[in-house]
């Protein structure tokens, strides 16, 4: 199946701004899913609210566009009910880690087999450019006119500490790596987190004089490197890309199946 076959053309044109990184994430994600060769009926995409959340409408899966921050809670209900389905939950930085932070850490703690994708553009785009918990200090936003004093989460460290069993990061520039990481994240049995740095030229770019979309994507190219690379040793400021953690731990739905077996006294 071609990537195009995963799109709902009826839903286009999409609502993202020119130069937005989210379309590049969509491209990489569908390339990754295509390689899995799954039936579209086996995939459920659940999203919350924000620019990133609109991605679910554009794909031809079972799609659930929910409320702000709660996508993982809805996804937990779907997955727990029908564990054979593959759950993909794309979220923005505010969606996943401000209003949705509690659901994020608890889904990770349970190690429920859901793939969380954090499309991190370090800004609230849909509401017009407010700082997010991933903006970091020194950033300008419509609610940080004198620069932001809030420190940011490190998505990778947070996900690892909370109990996720697959944790990876890449950027919108590295589309092939997006495809590869999302494919591996979906295949991983347990809670997987893929952080994808994405550009918002409209708000983050303009507020912070980061240039246009091309400049911002070039920044991702020049300021990131593979995990443990020589470049990282020479320049510790580089942001690492790749798989930070891939480990085994009992998956929540499998464990619940054992509870059912015990409760039914082996009568199943």
């Amino acid at each position, binding site marked *: 199946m071609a990537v195009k076959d995963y799109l709902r053309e009826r839903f286009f044109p999409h609502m993202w701004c020119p130069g937005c990184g989210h379309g590049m994430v969509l491209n990489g994600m569908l390339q990754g899913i295509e390689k899995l060769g799954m039936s579209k*009926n086996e995939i459920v995409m659940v999203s919350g609210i924000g620019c990133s959340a609109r991605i679910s409408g554009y794909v*031809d899966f079972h799609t*659930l566009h929910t409320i702000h921050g709660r996508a993982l*809670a809805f996804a937990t*209900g*779907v997955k727990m009910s029908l564990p054979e389905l593959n759950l993909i939950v794309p979220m923005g930085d505010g969606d996943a880690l401000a209003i949705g932070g509690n*659901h994020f850490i*608890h889904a990770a703690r349970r190690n429920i087999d859901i793939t969380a994708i954090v499309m991190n553009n370090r800004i609230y785009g849909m509401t017009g450019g407010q700082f997010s918990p991933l903006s970091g200090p020194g950033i300008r936003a419509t609610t940080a006119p004198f620069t932001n004093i809030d420190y940011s989460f490190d998505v990778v460290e947070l996900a690892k500490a909370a109990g996720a069993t697959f944790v990876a990061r890449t950027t919108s520039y590295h589309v092939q790596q997006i495809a590869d990481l999302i494919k591996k994240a979906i295949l991983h049995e347990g809670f997987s987190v893929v952080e994808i740095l994405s550009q918002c030229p409209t708000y983050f770019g303009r507020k912070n004089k980061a240039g246009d979309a091309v400049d911002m994507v070039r920044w991702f190219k020049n300021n990131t490197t593979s995990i443990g690379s020589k470049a990282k040793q020479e320049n510790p400021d580089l942001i690492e890309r790749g798989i930070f953690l891939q480990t085994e731990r009992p998956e929540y739905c499998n464990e619940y199946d054992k509870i059912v077996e015990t409760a039914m006294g082996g009568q199943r």
Partner: protein
Amino acid sequence: MSENKKFVQGNEACIEGALYAGLDFYAGYPITPSTEIAEILSYRLPRIGGKFIQMEDEIASLCAIIGASLTGRKAMTATSGPGFSLMQEALGYAVMAEIPCVIVDVQRGGPSTGIPTHGSQGDINQARWGTHGDHAIIAMTASTHQDVFAVTVEAFNLAETYRTPVILLFDEVVGHMRERLVIPEPGVIPLVDRLRTSVKKGVDYHPYLPREDGRLPMSDFGGVHRYNVTGLFHDMWGFPSAEPRVVHGLLHHLVDKLENRTNLLARYKEYYLEDAEHLLVSYGSAARSARHVVEKRRLRGEKLGLLELQTLWPFPDTIVREKCAGAKSVIVVEQNMGQIFREVKLAVDEPQKVFLANRIDGVFITPVDIMNIFRIIQGKGV
């Protein structure tokens, strides 16, 4: 003792009703005085192959049951006031996306943390208007364990019939009191199963295109029809739309599907109404004391009657008006500052003859309380 007879708490009667109705998914968060529902279902559900999950909060609990319902399950959560407050946004989502589910609120005193271990009926208006935006909702209650069982079954049936969340407004008194419950044999109370689409695989399925009778057949997530569900105003495909015609049409559909069926949705019980000169209107635990008053006073030849409401929303205003028409006085007995009293005043022809008999101090309203208020209304003093 036959297997189908039990001596249980009201919370357990609710569980028995839910399981009778086919409950197979529960998500919840502990909160007094509803916690027994979660505790017992964590044991009962896996024994029948169902699912139980304790979520991180009440917000997540309602979200999870909405997700489960979309896969075809009969899903429920239970909570009390503070948790019910947290559920309001997801409740609006279930209304907008038309997801069948049941939300139990075992009421305690509020606002805020209030008085967790004491009864109240303070969440009646929150059930109606707690979530933002115009909408309609079904909310039901009951005063005896047999009726708690019956309205719980009914809640699941109505949720499926109208593709709507249904709220069960029990309270601490009924929830924790023990009394006899007779569980009917399977099949005695008819059950409404999920109406699933007959559209075949490969043929366009419109998840939000009502049939001629107004019902919307569903297709389980994970099945052969892939469609979009959203809390935004949406067209027949489930795709977001800001088209004025679509927005207007959908809001009317959401409200009219219930408000136009107010009489059909009304469940109530009447005691001695035919010749009642003084009519008590009550519901939930308060109706137990109201009924006691009516029965005792009838023994003395006093013409009191009781209209016990089980459907609170949509408020059965036509029925209340008709039942109250001949009464000299109408006394609304409830454990709040007049939430249903206000509805009754709006419904009747002579609002000046409607009085409130209430108690709001966390103590269950007694027959003596009601009689004292009745004497004051009659100008007889206490």
